[in-house]
């Protein structure tokens, strides 16, 4: 019976490993491919940590299994041996993980810097400034673009263009936007683009992203912000520069809609 229990408890980590190993290929659960270069780098960090964790998991589980098996096969007549700590063992399991943690902390530094530190943002975003302001609000995303040919100002301008829950960004070049919130704390979460950034009341937080491939990506809120948190969902449309320009023109036209003028689309809109 003792042997049974030893094997029984060893079985579960083994099952867990197998399930985790086959889950992505069976489409049980795994995140989708990263759609931004920075996202790929973040994924690489993740994989590195995953390997470390896997190694530690296998090692510790194997050790535990070994101890259990040893205990289970030992004869009952032998008296138990109690030990109270081993100085060198404790040193080892403190220093080795400390090294691993320090290594991870240092190793991820440049990805962190490229994502978060303003002075290391891609050069284009430094020159162009923010392309839009995204304001989280209970429970929607409101977007403000600068008027045609203008730069985004921190405060609203007369010719700004507005949209709700619909972000259009050009592909193939880094784009910077300002993130803010109107009320409580929210978090800008674009899973496919690997961006998760809190929006903090009173702060204007610059974020940049570069998307290589055209497509529609999710924008969610990742900070429980109230009853309607679940419905803070928007679409990020990554598309070629011309398409974005077309969209902006459409937005401009809609926003200047006076119900009469030639280009007014009121007829099919109403």
């Amino acid at each position, binding site marked *: 019976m003792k042997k049974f229990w030893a094997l029984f408890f060893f079985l579960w980590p083994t099952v867990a490993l197998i399930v985790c190993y086959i889950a992505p290929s069976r489409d049980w659960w795994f995140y989708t491919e990263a759609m931004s270069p920075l996202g790929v780098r973040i994924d690489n960090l993740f994989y590195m940590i995953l390997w470390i964790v896997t190694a530690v998991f296998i090692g510790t589980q194997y050790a535990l299994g070994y101890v259990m098996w040893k205990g289970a096969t030992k004869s009952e007549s032998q008296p138990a041996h109690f030990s109270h700590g081993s100085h060198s063992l404790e040193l080892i399991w403190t220093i080795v993980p400390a090294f691993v943690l320090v290594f991870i902390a240092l190793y991820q530094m440049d990805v962190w810097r490229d994502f978060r530190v303003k002075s290391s943002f891609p050069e284009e975003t430094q020159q162009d400034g923010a392309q839009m302001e995204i304001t989280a609000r209970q429970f929607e995303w409101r977007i403000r673009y600068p008027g045609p040919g203008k730069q985004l100002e921190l405060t609203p301008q007369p010719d700004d263009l507005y949209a709700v829950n619909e972000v259009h960004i050009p592909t193939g070049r880094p784009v910077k936007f300002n993130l803010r919130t109107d009320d409580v704390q929210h978090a800008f979460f674009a899973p496919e683009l690997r961006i998760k950034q809190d929006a903090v009341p009173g702060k204007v937080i610059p974020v940049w992203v570069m998307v290589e491939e055209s497509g529609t990506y999710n924008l969610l809120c990742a900070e429980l912000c109230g009853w309607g948190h679940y419905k803070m969902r928007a679409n990020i449309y990554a598309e070629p520069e011309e398409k974005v320009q077309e969209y902006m023109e459409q937005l401009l036209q809609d926003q200047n809609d*006076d119900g009469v003028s030639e280009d007014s689309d009121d007829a099919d809109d109403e």
Partner: protein
Amino acid sequence: MSIRTIISSSLVCLAALVMAGCGNGESSFVPGKSTGKLMTGAQAQVRKTVDTVFGTPQNLVVWDVLPINDGGIRGTLTDYGKSSAGAATTKWLTITLDSDWATDSPEGATIDFYSGVWSQATIKEWNPETGQVLLTDKVARADGSKKKDVPQKPSVGEKIVINSGVVLRHGRSLYQRHCSHCHGTSGDGAGPTAEYLHPLPRDYRLGKFKFISNKTNSRPSRDDLHRILKNGVPGTYMPSFVPMLKDEELTAVIEYVRFLSMRGEFEEKLGIAFTEYTMEAYSKSDEKKQLVADLKSFIQEDLKDELEYVQEDLKTAWTDADDFETSGVFPVAPRVPDSLASRQRGRELFVGKALNCVNCHGIDARGNGPQTEDFEEGADEPGLHNAWGHVVKPRNLTTGIYRGGRRPIDLYRRIVAGIDPSKMPAFGGKMPIPAGRLAADASPEDRAIAQDEQVWHLVNYVLSVPFEVEPGHLPEPVLAETDEPQTTPEEN
């Protein structure tokens, strides 16, 4: 009983309660305010009528005369068919449909027959070319009863409806999930979260809406409701529901909002028919017996006409709402280009005696005009009261937030048609025309154009208010600004 049994059994009860939810899990429509004021007999009659016509949330009824698109496809039963073996059977029917039924999977669709009462069956197969339908089983009375006086078999020539109510039921479940905690199950704007919000969620039961593209006091068009759901109402707790709700979900939930609104209005109007029979009248009356007898004869003799009248009223109002040509508000003259002069004229109109926007919106357009401190007749707090009896503040126009939309056409509509439920008057046709603008014999068209020009000046002014250097002091026009050197924004 030991303490332990008490604790454990109460835990079990609690768990059972939690799992069962509150009450019996059925939601119900609550009666309107004015219904509650009626005499018991009148109240019962109103509630009974409303329930017959609109059903309960679990069992919705669509009154055919109202313009509600419940998703059902109507047609007629043209023939009984024969089974493949050649025997006559009630399972094979031939039907003709009034409109196209675009479906890939007819199996499982319901088909309702009307032969005095409705009965229902389920479709197994359908042949779009021949109109032949195979049913899974015999036609059954929808209410399950087996009254003798009702023909068990629908006869040829009778009305049928396929998939009756699917859209409305879909709309209801979406509404319950996404809207009812604010707008309430009955659409009374009194869901559980409502009390924490300002402004309060819309109470649909008066059929009054604020941000519509239709004339003063009209119902909203489906497109208006669609726009509200797409854009939300910025500056309030009404959020945008796109892209969370897909197109067909929006259609369904919009139809359900219209259903609730018509239901509320129906009840309200029916209540008005009973004005002579309120509790108050009863308690004041010297001849209580006579009053009860009058009520009885009223219900027996006049109610039918009243119902017809209410029905006709609702039908016209809600049908017209979707007819943009007759109900829509649209300008005849295009927007006057934005310029300093135009804004100045707008400001003149804004403060001028003729329109007196400042009376409500205030001299600096902050929504604090003198009228916000006046007491309305019978009110116990100062300020404007909206159609639902709550104090409403005129908009602070310096914030640059426009709840009904920021397009020029939106603001045009707000000014021309007003915001009736909030007592902002309709200013269409009331614009003072500057001397010399029109000849004495100007045609009505010219007059309309001149009117519109004035409205556009106001729109240009309103849009410039958030950018004023100081209240009433107009900034240089945008156009002039573009020549100035661009300053680079500094974030953070």
